[in-house]
Structure formats: C-alpha cells, structure tokens
C-alpha cells in the first residue's frame, strides 16, 4: 500500500505503537468530538424545540382556523386529562392540542392520527369540536405518497368536504365511537360518519380514514367526559 508514502513518522512507529499512544490519541479525539457534539446540541436545542412547537401550532391552526392560541395536553391511559409538561409522556398517554379563540374560550381540540398509506405512513391532524361532536378540519402532517395521485388528499375539494362535519359521536356509555369512521367508494357516502374516497387514490384515502378512526377511538372516550377541564386555561 502506498498509504504510508508520505507519513514516515507514522511508518517508523508502526511496528510498535505503544498502547499509551493509542489511548492518548483516542481520548484526545473523543474529547474534542464530545465537546463539539455537546456544544452544538446545547446551542440548537432551544431553536429546534421552538421549531417543533411552531410546526405543530401551525398544523393545529390549519385544522381549526379560528384558533388564536394552542396548548398541548395529554390524555392519560387511566382516563385523566392533564396539561403536557416537559419530558417524555407516560406510556399509553395520547397527546392532543386544545385550541383557544381570541377570547380564551375553547374553540376545539386537535389531534394526530397515522396509518400506513401507499408508500409510507401518512400522518394526519384533525380538529374536533364539542358542539357538533364532529371532526371539523383535516390536514396532513407528513406523507410520502405518490405525487399527483396520493397527494390529492390535500388538494381534492370533494375529499376535503368530507371533513366539514364528520360525525364522531360517542356511544351512550362513552366507551367508543357510535359509528366507526369508514371510507367508502367514491360517490356512495350516505352517512355522516362516512368518508367519500378519491377514486384512484383509494389506498391513501383509506389510510386517512383509518388514521382518524384509530386516533379518535382512543382519544375521544377519554377526552369527552373531561372536556370542560380544558376551558380553564
């Protein structure tokens, strides 16, 4: 190998580099690298957190356009509803956002759902209003669906009309949705809880329906009995 051609000082020592030298080199390099990583982590931490918060607020305001301020909450596995704090949420908790109007009154609740689409997971955000017990807005958080086919779910007017008042009423005992949110063939929507699919983008349409249904089935039974607690900011 010509690798040692112009590094004679290394070459000469190559036969017996003392362990101490190896350790010294490795620890110096690790120390430098550690410093660089920790420094950049601390420098960017706040900005990254702000970006994340802004991004989720923007997504919430897209599904609940009247909202003026947004606060994250958690619906815990034991049915309790608490404001989301710092750090990791406990297992089984579902994160959602309470959106308030200009007067500080609760406008609605937004939450995320996800399901496998055509290419990858489709993550959607939906807005829920207590008054009509329905979903009133819909947006896509992230997806990698086929451009021009799957991504019609954010441009197709007929499809978006499904989410003006999508029925997600709970059963009498508040254990689950009275009617499962269901995606039906294009043009056959007859009930308030059905979603009219985009013809040609069936898989993606179904993913949206499944994402909303799965998230709503878990979140709403926990949230609805306690929804008044969100009023007092």
């Amino acid at each position: 190998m010509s690798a040692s051609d112009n590094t004679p000082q290394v070459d000469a020592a190559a036969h017996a580099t003392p362990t101490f030298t190896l350790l010294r080199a490795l620890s110096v390099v690790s120390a430098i690298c550690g410093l660089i990583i920790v420094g950049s982590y601390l420098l960017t931490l706040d900005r990254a957190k702000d970006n994340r918060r802004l991004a989720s607020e923007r997504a919430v305001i897209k599904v609940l356009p009247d909202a003026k301020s947004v606060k994250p909450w958690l619906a815990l596995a034991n049915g309790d509803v608490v404001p989301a704090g710092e750090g990791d949420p406990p297992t089984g908790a579902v994160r959602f956002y309470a959106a308030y109007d200009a007067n500080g009154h609760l406008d609605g609740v937004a939450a995320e759902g996800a399901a496998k689409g055509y290419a990858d997971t489709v993550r959607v955000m939906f807005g829920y209003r207590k008054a009509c017990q329905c979903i009133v807005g819909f947006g896509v958080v992230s997806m990698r669906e086929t451009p021009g086919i799957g991504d019609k779910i954010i441009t197709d007017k007929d499809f978006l009309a499904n989410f003006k008042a999508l029925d997600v009423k709970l059963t009498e005992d508040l254990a689950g949705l009275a009617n499962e949110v269901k995606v039906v063939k294009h043009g056959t929507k007859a009930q308030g809880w059905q979603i009219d699919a985009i013809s040609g983008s069936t898989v993606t349409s179904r993913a949206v329906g499944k994402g909303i249904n799965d998230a709503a089935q878990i979140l709403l039974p926990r949230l609805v009995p306690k929804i008044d607690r969100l009023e007092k900011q």
Partner: protein
Amino acid sequence: MARESLWQILLTTILSGNFVLAMFLGMCPFLGVTHSVSVAFPLGLATTFVIVIASLSAYLLNWVLGLAHLEFLRLICYIVVIASAVQLVEMYVKKNYPPLFRALGIYLPLITTNCAVLGVALFQTARDYDFMQSITFAIGGGVGFTLALVLLASVRERVELADVPESVQGTVLVLMLAGVLSLAFMGFAGLGGGA
C-alpha cells in the same frame, strides 16, 4: 400511532420499500459487485446477516442511551458499535466456522461501510419500531437487498454479450437496468398498506 403488523413490515421492506430500489441504501455493492449471480447471492446473504446483527445492537444501544438520556450521542455510538460488532462477528466466524468465513471472508469488511447497515439502524429508530418489528425490518431489508442484487446480476449476465452502444456501457447501462427494476418494484407499492 398505529402499529404496523410484522407481516406488513416484511412485505414492504422486501418489495415496495426495497432497500436498494426504493430507498437507495447500499448502492455501492449494488452497482459494484453485481457482475454475476454467484457473487451477488453470497454477498446478499452475508449482508442480511450483518444487517440483522446491526439492527439487534442498535436496538439494545438505543434502549441504553434512552435510559441514560444521551440521545445526542446516538449516531456516533451506532457507527462505532455496529462496526465493532461486525468485527467481532468476523473474528468469531473465522475461529469457529472457517468454511463459512472463507465463503463470506472478502465481503465482510466491505459490508461494514454499506449504508444499508447503518440505514436499518437509523430507520428503525426514526420509526419507533419495537424489538420484533426491528428484527423483522432487518430481515426483510436483507432479503430485499439480496433479491435486488440477484435480479440485477442475472439481468447483467444476460446483457453481457448483447451489442450495446459503446457510450452506454458500464455504469450507464447498470443504472438504466436498475431504473427499470425499480419501476417494476413500484408495482408492488400498496401491498402492505390499506385498511
């Protein structure tokens, strides 16, 4: 989050989400060592093996780092641990299974620098897979990698003697073939999806 079933993950990683043809992981061996099936197949198997090892160690490592709240060291730890794990496996195989080592020998060092190996670790972390899901993802990824390699190699063996314009020979031809293969694999998209 809806949990993907193991079957879904397996189908997706082998076909529609193929590591090479859809995610472009492991391009170097894909373009470099697909002259013949007899080389591509063992390389694919060896890579599958290494990918599974990498996935296992990355899963354990992520768990440990999560306990210690040192997530910002994830990347650096992944690459060091995966590289050492592959080295250890290489030494173990060399000592205890010499025939296997002779079969894999030349490929093992190559595999360490394959981005599919690091990719599997990064993607399983990004997607929050649990233990079984990670392993399935790794196996599927490896099988998909092998499939893509063997397919391309067999196509290349056939066009070997074909009369191709001089400007198209070499990398250009391989890339075009890969593009057609990738086009074919797109037909599988949506298999693992749906409600």
